[in-house]
């Protein structure tokens, strides 16, 4: 459905727009205003973060499709269908701001769903603030996003500094005496760096011996890093980065005959690309995830976490990761807040401010887990409730291994074949 | 005219004095202990076969090259080793053997660019009168790259004139030009010398040399081999050797 939609928009704009060139085609976007809730998605549909950006879109779209199957969001007994609008941030902060303003001005959206990356989110926040359009971010994990206390922005995923250190501590506790030392590396870019810093904090707090902490530029040759780790030979290697780096690290380490006893990464370990590219070499690799399909959460729209996973798989052909899940859950937050607000769309500025208040008061259970936003502190408006799960790849499957209440299998340590 | 002469005569130093100047490139001596001085309003021809060091001498005088030995004086000021732009500002102006026009600029702009370090208030006026003198006012707005070879030579000549210099060095300024254009240049030189400008010209066109030069300096293999008026030179055995080769 979303495909058809975008193609139709594409055709319409390209046919009508060719003549009009640029200025003054807002007129084209005037849609018949039935009582719909207009939702704008600002995310990286192109550019360096295109991959992740499209994951967020899938998550948002899946919710929109599901809720529209029921006729839309229910407010005061009436159903209001959801219409989605997209703005491509091109993985650039300034384009994200352009996109947000376009969605708000030209498409007159009532609410925004947020970008994939933290940088773009930081550039879009002031726009949402200016027009008083609430923005729910299903991605964006940098703690920086919440430092400025954005009144209209809400984050579904706990910032990395809340998750990576905890997961490291969980891991250390689980390993007990078996692990004494750890080294942390990370790509020198916002999310990856903060992930690495979180890991470092976790290492220090859990009493492990930190052998080294090193950041490196994206795209560098990893042979130096791997050789150094090999000579230090820590019990745990923690890596902050995206799947590209993990793939590169695993293959470089293999070529240099190095296999750490335990390797923990964060985002991207669970991605299909990582498991496919690394093959059997992914076996035993640990990851941190704020959500997996095995968790015991559920809600009315999507059912259980596992139901959600099946639904997403049948819709997109791949299993969802926690970003997709968080994005879909963003819709649930909107649904709940709109219901509590109890006012029919379209919403004017004042109403949208009330909606933001309603979102701030969110306290719900979803397939993604509990959602509630901090109302003060450094994680203002960040959903700090989810508890990170340590997972391990076993023969291509993602198996939660810690903490105990979520565990579905034994944590294998050291990884067989360790050097 | 007399006032111009008077003004020039009041200066006690020659406008240009080259004193025992030498220049080596690698193992080759391009200019070998050359001395030469030119008086106010004098036109000195520098002739000699290819590679005799004439153009190098010009570069040494105008600052494009630094001499290894010797001194260059302009109006009595020792300018040896000064940067080119600074020497140029003391009143020496030259053309190049290889055309060096500002090809992406109009004729007007070429001349104005030449006048830029001088009396800027009168620059436009001077530019216009120079173009008139050289009879190229009609191409004032053309890009110099669009001009014919002869017109380009005129622009280059005009560029050195417009600066109001005291000494002008012309390096083969009439090479390959139409006789009409050559005549324009000759007339201009005659006219300008009357205002007290000193000329040094490298020239292969002997008719022209004969016509305008007060004095000739013949160079061969970096040295001055003869000096004097045209008739003296033409029958000088050193000169014949320089031109016709030695046996």
């Amino acid at each position, binding site marked *: 459905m979303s495909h058809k939609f975008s193609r139709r928009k594409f055709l319409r704009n390209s046919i009508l727009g060719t003549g009009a060139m640029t200025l003054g085609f807002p007129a084209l976007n005037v849609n018949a205003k039935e009582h719909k809730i207009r939702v704008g998605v600002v995310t990286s549909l192109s550019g360096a973060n295109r991959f992740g950006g499209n994951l967020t879109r899938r998550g948002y779209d899946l919710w929109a499709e599901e809720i529209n199957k029921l006729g839309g969001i229910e407010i005061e007994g009436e159903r209001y269908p959801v219409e989605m609008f997209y703005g491509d941030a091109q993985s650039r902060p300034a384009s994200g701001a352009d996109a947000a303003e376009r969605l708000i001005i*030209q498409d007159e959206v009532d609410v925004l769903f947020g970008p994939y990356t933290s940088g773009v989110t930081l550039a879009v926040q002031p726009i949402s603030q200016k027009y008083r359009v609430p923005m729910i971010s299903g991605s964006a994990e940098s703690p*920086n996003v919440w430092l400025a206390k954005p009144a209209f922005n809400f984050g579904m995923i706990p910032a990395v500094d809340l998750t990576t250190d905890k997961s490291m501590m969980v891991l250390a506790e689980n390993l007990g005496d078996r692990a004494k030392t750890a080294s942390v590396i990370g790509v*020198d870019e916002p999310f990856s760096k903060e992930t690495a810093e979180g890991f470092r904090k976790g290492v220090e707090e859990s009493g492990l011996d930190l052998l080294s902490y090193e950041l490196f530029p994206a795209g560098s040759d990893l042979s130096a890093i791997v050789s150094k780790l090999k000579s230090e030979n820590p019990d745990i290697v923690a890596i902050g980065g995206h799947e590209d780096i993990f793939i590169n690290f695993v293959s470089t380490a293999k070529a240099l005959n190095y296999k750490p006893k335990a390797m923990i990464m964060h985002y991207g370990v669970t991605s299909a690309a990582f498991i496919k590219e690394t093959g059997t070499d992914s076996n035993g690799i640990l990851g941190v995830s704020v959500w997996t399909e095995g968790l015991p959460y559920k809600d009315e729209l999507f059912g259980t976490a596992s139901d959600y996973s099946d639904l997403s798989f049948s819709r997109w052909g791949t299993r969802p990761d926690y970003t997709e899940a968080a994005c879909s859950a963003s819709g649930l937050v909107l649904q709940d807040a709109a219901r509590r607000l109890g006012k029919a769309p379209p919403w004017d500025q004042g109403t949208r401010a009330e909606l933001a208040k309603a979102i701030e008061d969110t306290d719900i259970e979803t397939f993604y887990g509990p959602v509630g936003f901090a109302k003060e502190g450094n994680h203002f408006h960040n959903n700090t409730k989810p508890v990170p799960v340590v997972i391990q790849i076993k023969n291509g499957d993602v198996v939660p291994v810690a903490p105990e209440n979520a565990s579905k299998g034994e944590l294998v340590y050291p990884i067989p074949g360790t050097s | 005219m007399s006032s111009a002469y008077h003004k020039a005569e009041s200066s006690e130093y020659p406008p240009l004095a080259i004193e025992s100047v030498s220049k080596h490139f690698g193992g080759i001596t391009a200019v070998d202990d050359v001395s030469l001085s030119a008086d106010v309003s004098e036109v000195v021809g520098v002739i000699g076969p290819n590679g005799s060091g004439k153009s190098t001498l010009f570069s040494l005088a105008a600052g494009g090259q630094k001499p290894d030995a010797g001194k260059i004086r302009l109006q009595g000021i020792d300018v040896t080793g000064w940067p080119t732009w600074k020497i140029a500002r003391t009143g020496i102006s030259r053309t190049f053997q290889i055309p060096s026009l500002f090809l992406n600029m109009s004729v007007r702009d070429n001349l104005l660019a030449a006048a*830029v370090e001088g009396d800027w208030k009168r620059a436009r006026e001077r530019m216009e009168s120079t173009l008139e003198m050289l009879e190229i006012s009609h191409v004032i707005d053309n890009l110099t790259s669009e001009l014919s070879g002869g017109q380009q030579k005129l622009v280059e000549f005009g560029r050195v004139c417009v600066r109001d210099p005291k000494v002008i060095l012309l390096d083969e300024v009439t090479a390959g030009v139409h006789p009409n254009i050559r005549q324009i240049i000759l007339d201009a030189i005659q006219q300008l010398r009357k205002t007290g400008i000193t000329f040094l010209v490298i020239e292969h066109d002997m008719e022209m040399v004969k016509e305008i030069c007060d004095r000739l300096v013949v160079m061969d293999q970096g040295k001055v081999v003869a000096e004097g008026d045209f008739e003296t030179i033409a029958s000088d055995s050193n000169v014949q050797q320089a031109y016709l080769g030695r046996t």
Partner: protein
Amino acid sequence: MASKPDLTPKLIVRSLLIGAMVIALVALPAAIDPYTLRIATGALMWAGLACAWNIVGGYAGYISFGHSAFFGIGAYTTAILMQSDVGASFFVTLLPAIILSMAVAVAIGGPTMRLRGAYFAIATWAFAEMLLQLVTVLDFTGGTSGLSLPAYLNEFFFYYTMLIASAASFIGVWVLIERSRFGFRIKALRDDEPAAESLGIRTNLVKVQSFALSAAITALFGSIYAYWTTYIDPYSVMGPEITDQMVVMVLLGGLGTVWGPALGGVLLWITNRYIWSTFGDTVIYLPILGVIIALVVLFLPNGLISLIMGRQRGKELISRILGKL
């Protein structure tokens, strides 16, 4: 130049046109919505940046691939000074931004501009990459996490600020380069450096002056940009794409002309945003741009402006294309 232009009909038409354009530009915000105004603001910025690059690239003849460094210096100076621990107001930050960028330009301009042609291009690129890497490893620049600025969300303010900055840049360049001595010096240096020297022009000084001027304007736009977008990181204000855009805009509009960069900058930016809002992606814009550059080099080395302003250039172009076939 001490001359009064005659009031020819051509001049009257031109003055009327310019007057109309000024009125249109000033009145524009009243006529369009904030989003379109944002695009217009961007177009003004890129026109101004192209104008800045053109000083060095077009007039002095030094193809710089390092101008993103100055954009970044401007953006970072403003961003750092506006952090809450310093708390300077926006306009106060402009002066240090400009001074710092000029100081850097003067410091590196001397040695770097001894290099010619492609060597200069590579050296400036290396310098920009070096600065980019430096910004990512330093703490006070926020490293790769970037910096957020206090948000001031008045679209009129930014439109008029850009308009003033851009207009000042163009008028400045026009006055300085087309109407004063400096322009003759810089163009003479571009076309033939030894000849310029022999005419008394102090080329080394002129080179550095033009580099510093270009850097200052670039930094000015960097400063405004930072305040406008409210968030900057190393790649968004120092990435090579910023320089690339400037180069392409000038090349397309017309190297070494006053209005070419304006044409190139506005046209390309609007095209970019149009493709983006229509197709949702500007990737296709890149290969098209590449082909256009190659074609411009082959057939229209004086840029699009030569089609409008050139006297016989149009004919020349056609004959050149026909000559190729």
